[in-house]
């Protein structure tokens, strides 16, 4: 059970980050201030990125690690997002200065990278845990006080519970296929050579899928598993809330995508119906609940829930059309949305971290009143992020929504699925309607920044002297604008990512006798 040298070489960027994280944890006790650790963490990320570029392409990597476009793409996304968070966390107004935050951050980045690369159930689970466990530490480090401890406790217990469900699902999947390797599982499922009988399959497949969905549903804050999000976001710092809003969502979506591709031969029509129900519930509840929130981080928590709902639309499309290449379109739209959402979210939380009132942090929506004129740069950036999240045309978020909705509606209209088309048209209509509802609270934030009511108390918001948050905010704003004006590059990348994840399977499929069986199975559903 040794790891081949090539595999190690392939995972070298991850190894660098883990070693750096360990060093920061150990040496952090020596009391070096947080600001000093920032360059260390940042250069570790740069080094990892450099290694990832210079990597030889002809490595004989073990089966546990997948070398495909999706993995590489997620690797880059994780490094980029990680770098933005590292810049942001150099210093934070009114919070303890601890070095460990960088160690945790780097581990979370590694976890996200590994989720993209994992080709084995065990590695996938470990990678997801590598995101969860440092998050507990981060939440605890966030800020002293009852609210923070409560938030940490809630997240801790519920996260463990979700991991249990996920693990249970994985074990059922293992039981079905008799292997933990994703490629082998796919081969077995596609060939119909299940370890259990026909009855066992019909019982266990849904159970496995639901368990996996529940476990990952917690990480991406999909509706019945979302309850922690508002409380935890509210109880912690802007930085932590940003980390929670981005990393688990990227990892969870990618993991779900991988598992769906693997399980596609045995997933029946119930699977897309389940996900569709989740999607409808998630976006509607997220948007409606966000409408009247007064705490800004709580509002953004509901907004992030709603965005999960939109992303699930892409998954529904992919699940339904898993038999043909239009599954790519569902996945690529979802990935595009994921990246675009991540940028805008990071920017929003960076802006909130940069602004601070006399009590230290911006908590209430109303404390943003009038910053449009006193902090024009921050307000302009926040407005860009809000418009992008709402999906107003020339910005990045518009393209995400555009392709998600378009995929859904064109699936609904395509002649060959006429009996089911109704569902997809409903889904698209509800999605677009939700985008209109969502505008309500995004506009509230913009309105309060630029059109403060006279009677509202205008707190003296000052910006924190730390430049890092401002820099991250500006970078994100520039990215949102750039993707909005020239979406071609990112669209091409996400499309290639989605296709590569599929083509790997297709290549195996061709070499396998399972082609015919899987086709005939799926066409009867």
């Amino acid at each position, binding site marked *: *059970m040794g790891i081949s040298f090539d595999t190690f070489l392939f995972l070298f960027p991850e190894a660098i980050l883990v070693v750096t994280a360990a060093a920061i944890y150990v040496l952090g006790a020596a009391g070096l201030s947080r600001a000093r650790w920032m360059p260390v963490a940042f250069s570790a990320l740069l080094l990892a990125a450099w290694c990832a570029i210079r990597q030889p392409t002809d490595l004989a990597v073990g089966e546990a690690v997948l070398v495909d476009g999706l993995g590489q793409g997620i690797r880059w996304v994780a490094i980029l997002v990680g770098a933005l968070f590292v810049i942001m966390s150099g210093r934070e107004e009114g919070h303890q200065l601890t070095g460990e935050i960088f160690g945790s951050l780097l581990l979370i980045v590694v976890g996200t990278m590994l989720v993209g690369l994992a080709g084995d159930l065990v590695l996938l689970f470990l990678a997801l845990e590598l995101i969860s466990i440092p998050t507990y530490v981060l939440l605890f480090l966030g800020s002293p006080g009852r609210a923070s401890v*409560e938030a940490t*406790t*809630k997240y801790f*217990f*519920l996260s463990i519970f979700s991991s249990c469900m996920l693990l249970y699902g994985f074990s059922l999947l293992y039981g079905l296929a008799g292997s933990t390797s994703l490629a082998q599982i796919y081969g077995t499922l596609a060939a119909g050579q299940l370890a259990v009988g026909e009855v066992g399959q019909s019982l266990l497949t849904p159970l496995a899928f639901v368990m996996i969905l529940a476990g990952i549903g917690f990480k991406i804050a999909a509706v019945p598993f979302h*309850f922690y999000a*508002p*409380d935890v976001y509210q109880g912690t710092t802007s930085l932590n809330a940003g980390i929670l809003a981005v990393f688990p969502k990227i990892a969870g979506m990618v993991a779900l995508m991988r598992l769906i591709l693997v399980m596609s031969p045995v997933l029946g029509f119930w699977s897309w119906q389940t996900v569709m129900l989740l999607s409808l519930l998630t976006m509607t*509840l997220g948007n*409606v*609940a966000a*409408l*009247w929130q007064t705490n800004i981080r709580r509002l953004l928590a509901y907004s992030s829930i709603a965005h999960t709902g939109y992303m699930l639309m892409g998954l529904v499309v992919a699940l339904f059309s898993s038999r*043909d*290449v*239009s599954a790519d*379109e569902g996945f690529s739209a979802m990935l595009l949305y994921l990246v675009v959402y991540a940028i805008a979210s990071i920017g929003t939380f960076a802006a909130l971290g940069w602004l601070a009132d006399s009590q230290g942090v911006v908590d209430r929506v109303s404390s943003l009143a009038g910053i449009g004129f006193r902090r024009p740069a921050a307000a302009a950036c926040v407005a860009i992020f809000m418009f992008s999240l709402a999906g*107003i*045309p*020339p910005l990045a978020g518009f*393209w995400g929504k*555009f392709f998600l*909705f*378009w*995929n859904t*509606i*064109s699936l609904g*209209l*395509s*002649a*060959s699925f006429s009996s089911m088309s109704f569902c997809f048209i409903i889904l*698209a*209509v509800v999605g*677009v*309607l939700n*985008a*209109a*509802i969502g*505008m*309500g609270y995004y*506009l*509230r934030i913009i*309105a309060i920044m*630029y*059109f*403060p*009511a*006279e*009677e509202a108390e205008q707190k003296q918001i000052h910006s924190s002297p730390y430049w890092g948050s401002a820099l991250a905010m500006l970078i994100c704003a520039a990215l949102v604008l750039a993707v909005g*004006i*020239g*979406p*071609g590059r990112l*669209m*091409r990348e996400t*499309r290639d990512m989605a296709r590569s994840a599929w083509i790997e399977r297709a290549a195996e499929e061709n070499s396998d006798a399972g082609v015919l069986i899987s086709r005939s199975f799926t066409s009867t559903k």
Partner: protein
Amino acid sequence: MGNNQTIQALIVLISALPLAAAVLTAVLGPRWLRRWSHVPALVAIFVSFLCSLGLIQQIRSDDAGTVSVGFEEICTLWTWASVEDAYTQESDSSTTSGETTTQETHDFTIDVTLRADALTSAMLAMVTFVSFLVVFFAAGYMRDDPGYWRFFSYVALFVFSMTMLVSVSNLLLLYVFWEAVGVCSYLLIGFWYQKSSAAAAGKKAFLVNRVGDFGFALALLLIWSTYGTLNFHDTPAGPDSDASGYAASPTLDTDHELRGILGQTRLQDDDFAGGAVGTAICLLLLIGACGKSAQFPLHVWLPDAMEGPTPVSALIHAATMVTAGVYMVVRFSPLFLAAPAALVVVAAIGGFTALLAGLIALTQNDLKRVLAYSTISQLGFMFLAVGTGSLAGITAGMFHLLTHAFFKALLFLGAGSVMHAMGNVIDMRQFGGLRRLMPITHWTFLIGCLALSGIFPLAGFWSKDAVLGAVHDKIHELEHQQQESEFSAGQPSTAAVMLVSEASRPDATHQEPSPASFLKIYKLLYWVAVAAAFLTAFYTGRAYFMTFWGPLRIPQEAGNHAHESPFVMTIPLSVLALCAAVVGVAFVGLDFERPLAEQLQTNYFAEYIAGTPSLACDMVQATTAPGGFHFSVAALSTFVALAGIGLSGFFYLRCRKDVEWWTALASSWGVYQLSFRKFFIDEVYTLLIVLPLQFVASVCYWFDNCLIDGLVNFCGRIPVWCGGVLRSLQMGFVPFYAMFMVLGMLVLIAARMLWAGG
């Protein structure tokens, strides 16, 4: 091809200049320009106006050769987004014959393209002209406002967005600028954000528009799915194709060409989606148009938008932005013609809105709100005209759009002038008899009122008459069809044959609507429109008499300096008054060679607009042609207009006491309250939409706070409890230690076994 280059340069300049002005004002305004912030916008928009006149001249000169297909000139600026093999689509060879479904990969490209055609150039000229006058006016009106530069920067940005909106040749870009004008409108309604009502009105306008955009967005997705493109024009496939992109002649190899939604080849083949999808597309587009143009279910934002500065009301909420919905329906009229059911809905919504808004306007006391409801009502007229689906109706709608822009901008600016003098009081009950005090405002306002009421020979008369005439023609046409079908129904064998042929027809694209069902609707709508015309005259007269007649009354807010507005404000009023007076007559051509009844057969504006490619195609040209002047209709509309003004004069001029008697009578029936409270539509929305959402939100809140917190708090106690247990373990319960040792051993053995097995 020097002509093409001129056109391309002009169409780019028209939009680019206001954008440059907006940026310049935003950058230089606060520091250097200050009091002169209006200059960049004023100059840029004026040059844009000249350019659009030049554009019209170019198109007219080119028009002669290509009357049969209309004239269009496409100008591709750059490629916005381009991804090759972006998506696969089950493509049909054409939308009407969907047997061959093959998976094809398509590239995804969005070109930033502008188009020059008759419709666009007419809209551009109108927008830039009115904008120029409004900016001129605002230079005086906004003089002492602290946000002087901000105002002109926003206005220039709006003019840029609006000119782009009417000149882009891609549906996605149309959507982009559709949103952009919405954002500008939001910024300008909430310009005086210190007033909480202004900020709320801006938000309401934006959100209601988002509901409309929901329809537009879905329509956009549906169109892309159905037509496979978002371009209006045909896109040549190869780079070696004619660079001008001008496809007037059916090109040799149409296979290599991506057919636009409104491209020449599609127009000639008459290849538009009908049936359920076609109707759905049109209805969704209509929702979008209703949002922007404030039609019935979504009209609630426009009256509130009057919280913005008055020049904004004149420019955005009377003349330009609100007509974008009409422009869109006209632009897509071939799609609507392919879906007759949607067309009837357009007409019905227009007619109903015209009546409803007219009824509400009767009792409003806020001068600007009367004008706002009047705008909604007149937009209803335009929708009604376009909803007839005949060339006569569509051109009549556009004609009314043009004349309305002049006289309604005039009325709003007049109201602004009154407001300026009255210390920002706009309640008509607080002032009166201003005709001596403000003579220029009075006379120009009077011209506007008469034009709005439709009194001969002012602009409103001609356009309103064209609208009513178009509906009248439509009724004739439908009656004619009904007689024909009755005639053929008399022969049973023919009917059977028709049934068979109906069923066997492969495409249901041009299934004729059953005339009988629509005939009643259009007949009703005709009388609704006549009633609305009466109401128009009445509330216009009411506003005029209450403001300018009776004893002189000036509110306290005006102080002692109530005066006629300065020249910078009265000059635009005079220019607009001149336009409102002559713009109708100017386009009417007398043809003395014909008999008297047909002398007014031509309308130059309608002829010009009919040169737009989407109107010049056969399917539109086959419908009733414009220009038919009906003396009976004209007599009827003049009669009701005079009756409305006369009645309002009777109530509000001669014996003002009767007003109370009249309102007492009306309120005893509850009618007055119904109109005064705007038919309780806002309240209904609160009840049906806001409250349920609030309820769901509060349920979520309760769920979060009580149920989940309780659960989590319960979980939170577990560690404390566990800690207690662990402490008790540490206290020295030997049996426990022993048990854990055994357990640990078992775990180790298990691990060992697994290790060996693995």
